């Protein structure tokens, strides 16, 4: 489906006692069903804010967010949110952690239970089902977090730098792992990251944001859908070039900003 998720000139301003901060400015883009979209931008540019808008925790100051052509008001749409750390509850077993969402939404039907138990088995978490999170490795914990996100059968996955808390080696492997599972489950994904190579290795479409107030600088298409895994994508010919392009775009802003403040300082 086209325009599964659509943002229409969305702006968001934060207010505090002493100032107002413009976080997002006139952001418009769409995500089609089954598409993997990455958003990259300098740190602190409001990427996470963008995800909060999509899952309805924040309401835009201006503009609208549509999901399935319906405007998002409040946390109503069926999203699955995955954060930087796994945030598994230490006092629950892995299985109980995974069932958390269904438990809250009171959807513990026999069908759902079976579906989720299948997910647990399919993705190799069965032997850890009765373990507590502190007995699992970082990679396994992140996988459990992903299965927890998938358990409620969300229409769209929102990944907020889901690998940034992992060390480099684990990170590449977990990235492969997560990608494989998401593709198998045919989910639509919106990924937020500051890691350009991660974005290219996973996404179909990359949205480059500028510094705060974030606006869309450019949209890239990776055309790497035929390559099976993020690790293999890193080895393709176009990878380095695309990395260079996006890196330049991000850097442009830094230098321009630098010149601006320099000019300001002089005058």
């Amino acid at each position, binding site marked *: 489906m086209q325009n599964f998720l659509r943002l229409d000139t969305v702006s968001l301003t934060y207010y505090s006692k002493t100032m107002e901060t413009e976080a997002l400015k006139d952001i418009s883009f769409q995500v089609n069903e089954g598409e993997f979209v990455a958003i990259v931008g300098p740190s602190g540019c409001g990427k996470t804010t963008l995800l909060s808008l999509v899952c309805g925790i924040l309401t835009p100051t201006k503009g609208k967010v549509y999901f399935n052509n319906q405007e998002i008001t409040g946390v109503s749409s069926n999203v699955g949110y995955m954060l930087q750390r796994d*945030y598994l*509850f*230490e*006092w629950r077993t892995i299985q109980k952690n995974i069932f958390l*969402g269904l438990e*809250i939404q009171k959807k513990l039907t026999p069908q759902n239970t079976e579906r989720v138990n299948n997910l647990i088995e399919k993705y190799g978490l069965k032997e850890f089902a009765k373990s507590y999170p502190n007995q699992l490795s970082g990679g396994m914990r992140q996988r459990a977090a992903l299965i927890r996100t998938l358990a409620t059968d969300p229409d769209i996955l929102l990944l907020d730098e889901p690998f940034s808390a992992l060390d480099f080696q684990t990170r590449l492997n977990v990235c492969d792992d997560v990608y494989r599972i998401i593709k198998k489950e045919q989910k639509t994904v919106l990924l937020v990251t500051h890691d350009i190579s991660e974005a290219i290795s996973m996404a179909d479409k990359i949205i480059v944001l500028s510094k705060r107030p974030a606006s869309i600088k450019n949209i890239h298409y990776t055309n790497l859908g035929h390559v099976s895994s993020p690790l293999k994508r890193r080895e393709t010919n176009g990878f380095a070039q695309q990395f260079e392009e996006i890196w330049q775009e991000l850097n442009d802003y830094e230098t321009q900003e630098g010149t601006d403040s320099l000019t300001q300082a002089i005058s």
Partner: protein
Amino acid sequence: MKHKKELTPLHKQFLKKERKGKLTVFGGQFGFLILCFALWEIFAHYGVIDSFITSSPSRIWRQFGELLKNGNLFLHIYVSTKETVIGFLIGTALGTLAAIVLWWSPLLNKIFEPYLVVLNSLPKVALGPIIIIWAGTGQAAIITMAVLISVVVTTITMLNGFNNTDPNKILLLKTMRAKKIDIFGKLVLPSNLPTLVSCLKINVGMSWIGTIMGEYLTSQAGLGYLILYGGQVFKLDLVMTCILVLCVIAAVMYLLVALLEKSLVRWNS
């Protein structure tokens, strides 16, 4: 999920060292106690200290036997322990309940914050005369004192724990469309079980303070009553005996809470 494996010699050596270290600590703890009592006894025996005002272990032992024979030691222990346990339970429950209400409503939290601060710094003993007038001179007054001393500290500690729940975990639950009751029941309360346990540990001490203070103010029986009585008639043997008994009972209560902790926070091991 530990597999049984043959221990390597170095591992065995390590375990032996561990055990030895533990034994040393335990021996030291026990030895210190023995040393104190021994010195106390010797000094009293040779007249270095006046055992009329310091008592001595042997005199305490004799006093203890006498109290046992008269049969009312257990009555006094029973009275005080009952007051303490009731005060402890009510204080902890009320305090936790108050903390839940204040966590639930940030507005109430803000409104009552200064009151909590003042109540916390107020020495509750100062309320003694008022308590006696309102609750009478019976056990009700003593229990009220025990409750008052533990309830404010519980409220503040629990509220602090509730308010420090990881905001990202709350965000996670919100994206799952959790209501406030879910956030409390599935996250805030279970993640604060350790806080509750440390509250219980503090409250063992707090409610004993309340009980003894209450008994000093008004009582017909109890360890506090005995201590006060012993002091008034200058029977230091009685005072010291009661204090030692008090130490033992408080330690037992603390151990019970520690046992409870083990079963409550199993996942933390």
